[in-house]
Structures are given as structure tokens and as C-alpha cells.
């Protein structure tokens, strides 16, 4: 067997190995078992993920900040009554409750370009923290394009496909759903942005475009808003979304941006 030369600086190889991966390697053992510290740190990461799934989203708290950046809102709910049912019955989380359907029908005012939906999905943490800054970053792009926008639906117990019914009722050309993504152990605050052209009940995931991992430490709000605008403009031009619409926004990254959407120092 060929033996590599040991490092001459005498450094602990485990410190070097640990730095190479976010995976939990080199954990200390006691006997065969994990050390107390490793067990409890894992438990806390799982607790954060569990709380993100099970803490009800406080959509009421989003209304005033969204109004301040120019978005009127409308609270809606899927046909699901409880978190337990939500997790067992994805089909019901994709349809509006009868009351919510009636509310949107009363609110809808002819054709609009875009319907926006903030959906709790599987992480209220993500929605609570990310929905306002994302929409604030997106507002200048809407203004630049002159897009007409329906009131933002604040949807609880909602799956991505709930946006299809909402978008159809608002008679929107496209719907954008901001949804809390299933939390992992390393991040429980990721938002996903799903774009669907010509929303109707029965659309499939192959007909959507997705921008995922939107969070501090992941894809920044400014960059996400830029990508979303790029995809949305392309979808409205081509009259389609999904697998036929490739995200080439990286090539367009040097285009001029509206003043308020210039990337700040935290957006690098």
C-alpha cells in the first residue's frame, strides 16, 4: 500500500477533515455511543425543524408590513382544518375551503398579470421571516414592468398547488407561490418560489418553475427577486412555464436593475 506523506505541521487531521464537509463527521464517542454534546446538538437541530413544521403561521402579522410596501392582502385557507390532516392529505391542501373561494370571488376584479400567494407549506419559520423581505425586493421589478397584481393571498395549511385555484379565481396570467420548504436539520427557514403560467386546477409540477433555498445563507432575497422577475417575464412572453422554460437568469445577471432592487452589501 502506498503511504502518503504525513503533514509536517503536526496539525490534527480531524480538524482538517471536518472543515471539508458540512456533514457531521468526527463526532466524539463514549464506548460505542455518541457523546452527550453531539446527541443534544442533533436534538436541537431536529427541534428547530419540528417547530418550523408545527408552529402555526401568523399571517395576520404579515398584513401591515406588506401593506407598507404596497401589497394589499387577503387571508385564505385550504380545505384542511388541522396540521395532522395537512400532513396526511396533500390533496386537500391543494384546494381552497369554500369560504376562501367565496372570499376570492368577491375580491377578484377582472384580468391581472400576476397573483401572489404566501403559503405556510412545511415551514412557518420560513414564511414569517422571508415573505416580507422577498416581496419588498420584488416590488420594484413589478413597478418597472407595470404588471397588475391581485391582492396577496396569505394561505394557511397550503400546498404549492393551492396557487392554481387562487390564480384561476383571480384570472391571473401567472401565479407565484412563496412557500415554506420542508425543513432539513441544517436549515429550517428556506422559502421556495413556484411560478406557474396560466394557473388552473390540475396543473402538474412539470408545469412549474422553482427557485429554492431562499433564505439568509442561501439564495438572498435580492437575487431571488431578480431570478423571479426574469422567469416571470419570460413565462409571460413565451406563454408557458415548467420544463420548457429554462432558467438562464445567470446570463442576464448584468442587465440594468431598477434603483430599489440594486443588490445591497448583504446580497453578494
Amino acid at each position, binding site marked *: *500500500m*502506498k*503511504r*502518503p*506523506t*504525513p*503533514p509536517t505541521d503536526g496539525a*490534527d*487531521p*480531524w480538524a*482538517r*477533515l*471536518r472543515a*471539508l*464537509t*458540512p*456533514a*457531521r*463527521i*468526527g*463526532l466524539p*464517542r463514549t*464506548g*460505542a*455511543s*455518541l457523546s452527550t454534546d*453531539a446527541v443534544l446538538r*442533533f*436534538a436541537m*437541530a*431536529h427541534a428547530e*425543524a*419540528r417547530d*418550523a*413544521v408545527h408552529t402555526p403561521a401568523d399571517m395576520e402579522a404579515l398584513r401591515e408590513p406588506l401593506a407598507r410596501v404596497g401589497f394589499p392582502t387577503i387571508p385564505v385557507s385550504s380545505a384542511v382544518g388541522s396540521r395532522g390532516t395537512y*400532513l*396526511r*392529505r*396533500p*390533496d386537500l391542501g391543494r384546494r381552497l375551503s369554500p369560504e376562501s373561494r367565496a372570499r376570492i370571488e368577491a375580491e377578484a376584479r377582472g384580468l391581472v398579470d400576476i397573483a401572489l400567494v404566501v403559503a405556510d407549506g*412545511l415551514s412557518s419559520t420560513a414564511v414569517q421571516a422571508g415573505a416580507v423581505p422577498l416581496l419588498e425586493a420584488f416590488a420594484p421589478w413589478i413597478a418597472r414592468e407595470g404588471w397588475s397584481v391581485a391582492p396577496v393571498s396569505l394561505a394557511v395549511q397550503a400546498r404549492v398547488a393551492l396557487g392554481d385555484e387562487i390564480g384561476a379565481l383571480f384570472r391571473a396570467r401567472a401565479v407565484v407561490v412563496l412557500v415554506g420548504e*420542508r*425543513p*432539513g*436539520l*441544517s436549515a*429550517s427557514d428556506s422559502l421556495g418560489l413556484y411560478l406557474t403560467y396560466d394557473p388552473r386546477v390540475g396543473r402538474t409540477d412539470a408545469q412549474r418553475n422553482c427557485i429554492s433555498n431562499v433564505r439568509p445563507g442561501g439564495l438572498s432575497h435580492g437575487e431571488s427577486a431578480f431570478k423571479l422577475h426574469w422567469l416571470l417575464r419570460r413565462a409571460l412572453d413565451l406563454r408557458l412555464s415548467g420544463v420548457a422554460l429554462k432558467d438562464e437568469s445567470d446570463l442576464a445577471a448584468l442587465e440594468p436593475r431598477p434603483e430599489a432592487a440594486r443588490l445591497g452589501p448583504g446580497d453578494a
Partner: protein
Amino acid sequence: MPYRHVIGQRSWVFGSLRELMAKATPLRSGDVLAGVAAGSAQERVAAQMCLADLPLRAFLDEAVVPYESDAVTRLIVDGHDARAFAPIAHHTVGSFRDWLLSDAAGADALAAVAPGITPEMAAAVSKIMRNQDLILAARKCRVVTRFNNTIGLPGTMAVRLQPNHPTDDPAGIMAAIVDGLVNGCGDAVIGINPASDSIQALGDLLRLLDDVIRRFEIPTQGCVLTHVTTTIEAIARGAPVDLVFQSIAGTEAANHSFGVTLDLLDEACAAARSLGRGTLGQNVMYFETGQGSALSADAHHGVDQQTLEARAYAVARRFEPLLVNTVVGFIGPEYLYDGKQIIRAGLEDHFCGKLMGLPMGCDVCYTNHAEADQDDMDTLLTLLGTAGVTYVMGIPGADDVMLSYQSTSFQDQLYLRDLLGLKRAPEFEAWLQRMELAGADGRPTAPALSHPLLMADQSFAS
């Protein structure tokens, strides 16, 4: 044809074998979602009683998915081994359970009848078995497979080392491999789930695995878990492929949604065998399965998810795989809601696979939206250890940073070995001792900081 069961004044009717099987299945969210579950607890037990009275031969007469429209049904029916079935042909499902738990059903008898057991028979009997029955009967089954080592010998349990990295960074993957090896993991396979599906990335990862296995002369095999067509392409380009991986399911339509057919799997198996890389055997296939995949693909034909899972094992069996595992809690709570359902499903899958003659392992796992935690994984892992599971997963800290789910850690398998006295594949265990990574008792010894394995990542330094 309808099936009836009378209990006292009450008569229960089940319209078809498919309906009877579904309603006899212990409660799980996926069957409720599919609308095939029993409507009440009493209906479930009535179905189990009705099923217990059914002759095993009935499964040769009525298919749960039509023969004409499903290649998996044709594989099951056309490939049935009547001679192996003969010794159990007189049984009902109920008396078959009694036989499986009796002293008459030893390892040799079980191995002899395995080719005669259809997936529907295995699924049916599992539905009337309690968890302890599933454990005891599975423990009696012996399935031994070989590639570069020997997997499945009595008193052993192997581990897949799963060193995934979010961006396939070679040094990051190597760091996880090193940690797994020093904790005594990797005899089943060192298997990477790649983040990228490009053929170039696949080739790079295959060469990484080949290099580390050769450089340290590790008696094991490598695998990059990508689509079978990509692996066939990699073989054609001369990449060092040990095992061919593929996810499979229990209906033709579900397999179609995975982009696979039996012919395609034939082609891949032949291509891998043509390389002749196995030093001890030619078991070159690695399959993963999991309850709920057919429903998820809208390809379930009204059949319950556990029966469909067993049908996936008929697909696996055809290719004499080195490894098969059920990724039991990965699919999410709409199929297996909580720890109780995940534990039950893990034991069912392991039992049905073993009964049908497969080297059955289990990815004991869950996602963060399931009602489960590491305590449930400890329970299922311990139960599977007592049931003689062929292999489990070894993942750094039980936290897969690429696939975002939780499984079992390098330390979890050490716990199980300490608890139950389980050894590794003998060639691998001897290697660990040669490398001074394990003592004579098989327990890991902390390697010196100058150990060559701890420098394995240095080959990627620029």
C-alpha cells in the same frame, strides 16, 4: 371474485383479492390517502380473518394487477417456481404463518421454498403477522451474496457507508468516507448519492471510489446511485463500475415513471457483469424500494402499498442483487405517518424480502414532517438487528446533508454490534484489524493521527 367472512351475525364482503389485501393491511396513511384502507378497525380484522382462510393457491389464480397490462405481474406469474412451491402448496395464509413460526421451518426449508413464494403470498402472510412474528421468521432466513466480500453470513450485519456531499465535493466526500471507515462502516458498499446527474460527475465519483478502494485495498465495493441508463453509459465510457443501482417499484407503470423496464435492467446487469470486477461473486445489482412509491407515481392500480412493495422484490429477485433496501421513512407522512407506521413497514419489508430470498437491508429513516424522531429509529434499528437485517445505513451523525433526511449514524451501528454481538463481512472485518482500525473483538480503535487513512483527502489538494 368476492370474498366473504361471517363473524356471528355479521357478514363481511370483500369484492376482490385486491380489496381483501388492502383492507387486511395494518393502518397506514398511504392506504387511507389512496382510498383503499379498511373503513373500521373491525373491518380490518375481519379482512385479516378472511385472508387467513384463503389457500395460497388462490394467489396463482387471481392477480391484483392484471396480467395483460403489467410486466411485473407477468414476471411473477410466468416465473413462478411450482416445484419450490409444492411443499407449501397445501397451506392457507393462516397455516402458512403457523408453519413459518414452527420449528419445521428452518433456514434450509425456507431457502428451498423461497422461489415458490410470490410477492402477494409474502405480503398476505405478513398482514396477519405481528411485529414479533415478522422478526422471528425473518431471522430464520439465510441469504448470502458476494462481490468483493461476503454479505449475509449468520451473526453478521453489514453497513452501507453513505458519504454524500451537497455539491459532490471530492475532498468532502473523502472526509466522510474516512470517518465511516474508522468507525468500521462500508462493508455492504460505499455508496454515494450524487447531487449532479451529469455523466462527467458520475465518472469522477466512480474513479474516486475505485481509487480509495484500491489504494487501501479495502475488501468492499463502490456505487454511485444514479439512474441505470447513466450507469450503462458510464460503463460504455470505461468508468470503473462495481454495482449498478436503481430504484424499482411493484408495477410496470411505477417503474415506467422511474424510467426503467425489465429489459433495461437486464442490459445493465449484463454490462456490469461483463466487467468481471467482483473477486468473490457476480452479484452486481443494488436496488432501493419503499412503500408508497407506486401511489406517488399514480400507478398503484388500487392495490395497497405494502403488497406493491413486495411486488418490487419480485423485480429485484430476477437480477440476483448484492443488496436490496427499503428506504422506509423517506417518502413522507402521507404514506407512513409516524414512528409506529414506519417501524411496522420496516419490519414488513425486511420480512417479505428475506422470505422471497433477497439480501434485505433497510434505510431506517424519517423526514422532518413525519411524526418520528431518533428514538423511533433506535427502536426500528434494534428490532431489525434482532431480525437479522442484512445491512443498514451509516451516515455521518445520521444527518444526510445532501438528501435532507435523517437515518442511522456510524455510531448507531456500533451500538447495535455492541448490543447484539454482530460481526461485519469477514473479509472487511479482517481488513479493519489489519489496518489497526479495529481490535480482535471487532470494536473500533482510535487510529493514530499519522494513520495513512486520515491523509486520504490529501490526494485532492491542489
